């Protein structure tokens, strides 16, 4: 029976040696930032704990999270999907379809009540009773609420599920809403990014399935281990920032020398993610390394903060597109002109009243 099967049983059945298993544990423990004791704890957990079923649902999204996930190198996604978790339902990559597929949801809900993980990619649109996203003949928001009822915890994959992303950008016609604004009574872990880094995704899944609880989260509900530092803090171009050496325009000398992209609108100083340490595609590169600024894709409402290439945010509240400096300069200019005019009137008034007094 699957319910009593441990991870270790499955791993061994798959023909993986104990040596490889130990190696996997130490590698994963290291990537999650644990010490040597962490690897031991992981081994123990995997040997004694039941496999945790994962239900992976898709709302309004572009599947870039799934695309990223299947490219994980440490741990390999094959290990995660086949050995670590029982990915019982993922309508995009599963073999079953139609009624057969939907039956799995019902079965998991009953059999693993309060024990399964609900991973959500994308978000539900709430406008028109959720009619903008129909999944299996029902609005996605209903399916989401239904499956969330008996879940142990929810993983909000990507910027869509965490913040809303592009479909929630102004004016958000479908009223796309992030998961934590719809499900209020379950622990939710946000793994933002558009998409999130593959190793971050598998790392989070590994942690939850191994220890049966969520990793330590920050104020925004993101795992501290991957989202507690800014891109800027670990950026390899940071010395150029501190030195005051910037790319002034694309293809200038500074760009060729790999100077800081701050003036080109890099959002590294306000973006919390692991790109500058974990990097992408198995540690090959990340946007700044290939010469383009960070666009802040793991931050709340990054579509609505003006150009990706401006340092100062566009502020639309004032009706026209302007940034803080333009608004400030205009205000200071108006006040300055007011002061000059006021001083002039004061002087004229004073002279005329004096004349009146001497005349009288």
């Amino acid at each position, binding site marked *: 029976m699957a319910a009593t099967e441990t991870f270790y049983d499955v791993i061994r059945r798959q023909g993986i040696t104990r040596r490889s298993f130990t190696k996997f544990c130490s590698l994963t423990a290291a990537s999650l930032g644990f010490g040597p004791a962490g690897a031991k704890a992981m081994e123990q957990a995997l040997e004694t704990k039941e496999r945790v079923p994962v239900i992976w649902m898709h709302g309004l999204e572009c599947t870039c999270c799934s695309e990223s996930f299947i490219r994980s190198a440490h741990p390999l996604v094959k290990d995660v999907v086949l050995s670590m978790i029982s990915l019982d339902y993922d309508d995009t990559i599963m073999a079953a379809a139609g009624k057969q597929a939907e039956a799995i949801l019902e079965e998991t809900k009953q059999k693993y009540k309060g024990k399964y993980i609900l991973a959500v990619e994308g978000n539900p649109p709430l406008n028109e009773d959720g009619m903008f996203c129909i999944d299996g003949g029902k609005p996605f928001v209903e399916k989401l609420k239904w499956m969330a009822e008996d879940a142990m915890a929810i993983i909000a994959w990507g910027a869509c599920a965490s913040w809303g992303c592009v479909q929630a950008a102004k004016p958000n016609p479908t009223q796309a809403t992030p998961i934590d604004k719809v499900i209020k009574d379950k622990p939710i872990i946000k793994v933002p990014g558009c998409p999130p880094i593959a190793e971050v995704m598998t790392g989070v899944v590994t942690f939850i399935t191994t220890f049966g609880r969520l990793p330590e989260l920050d104020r925004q509900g993101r795992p501290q281990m991957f989202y507690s530092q*800014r891109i800027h803090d670990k950026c390899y171009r940071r010395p150029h920032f501190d*030195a*005051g050496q910037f790319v002034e325009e694309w293809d200038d000398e500074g760009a060729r020398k790999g100077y800081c992209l701050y003036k080109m609108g890099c959002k590294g100083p306000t973006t919390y993610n692991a790109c500058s340490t974990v990097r992408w595609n198995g540690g090959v590169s990340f946007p700044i390394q290939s010469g383009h600024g960070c666009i802040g894709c793991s931050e709340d409402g990054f579509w609505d903060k003006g150009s990706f290439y401006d340092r100062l945010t566009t502020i639309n509240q004032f009706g026209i597109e302007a940034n803080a400096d333009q608004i400030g300069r205009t205000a200071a200019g108006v006040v300055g002109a007011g002061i000059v005019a006021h001083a002039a009137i*004061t002087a004229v008034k004073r002279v005329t009243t004096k004349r009146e007094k001497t005349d009288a």
Partner: protein
Amino acid sequence: MSYSETKAADAHGEQAIDRKSVYVYEAPVRIWHWVNALAIVTLALTGYFIGSPLPSQPGEASANFLMGYIRFTHFAAGQVMAIFLILRVYWAFVGNKHARQIFYVPVWSGRFWSEWLHEVKWYTFLARQPKKYVGHNPLAQFTMFFMVTLPMFFMVITGFALYSEGTGRDSWEFKLFGWVFSIFPNSQDVHTLHHLGMWVILTFVMVHIYVAVREDIMSRQSIISSMISGERLFKDEEDD
């Protein structure tokens, strides 16, 4: 209240004018005022260059630290401003009643609003004469509260929150001011608001300096020298 009783006369027999003076601004308030003025200038200048950095420095990165020095100056001035703000709040409790004035607006007082209106009329050339005030006039109190006191607290709080981004999640700065990011999850917004706050304070500085000079000349009491000596001199002996 103390004022000079003796009337001095020079060799030509011309008598000095009698002027009442009141001790208004105690030493801690005056020191705070000037330290704050210096801090604001430093913070605005360095802050502006953090948002829009100077042209790139030539040479190796290891030989330059311009942005580092600018940021250091900004943070140091910010810490000074914060500490003096705390001391100033303390002095609002233990100092004289004038030390409290910029920390509240008596919105409940009808007299405050009628005198506030009079002051507006004086500035729009509708009133012939301003009233006499030992402390700030109602319009000044109103403006200082909304354009200095509140923005200063806002800048110190958002400033430390932004600083905590660099010092890390375990720092005391983040423990004390991290809640700012619960209100604005994307710190880019905090940067923008901090930037707008600078322009609010700078606009105030312009108005403040102009009005201080103008009042010193036009009104019935001393203004500029009061912030140096602490004494408020009255130019006439009429009431009110």
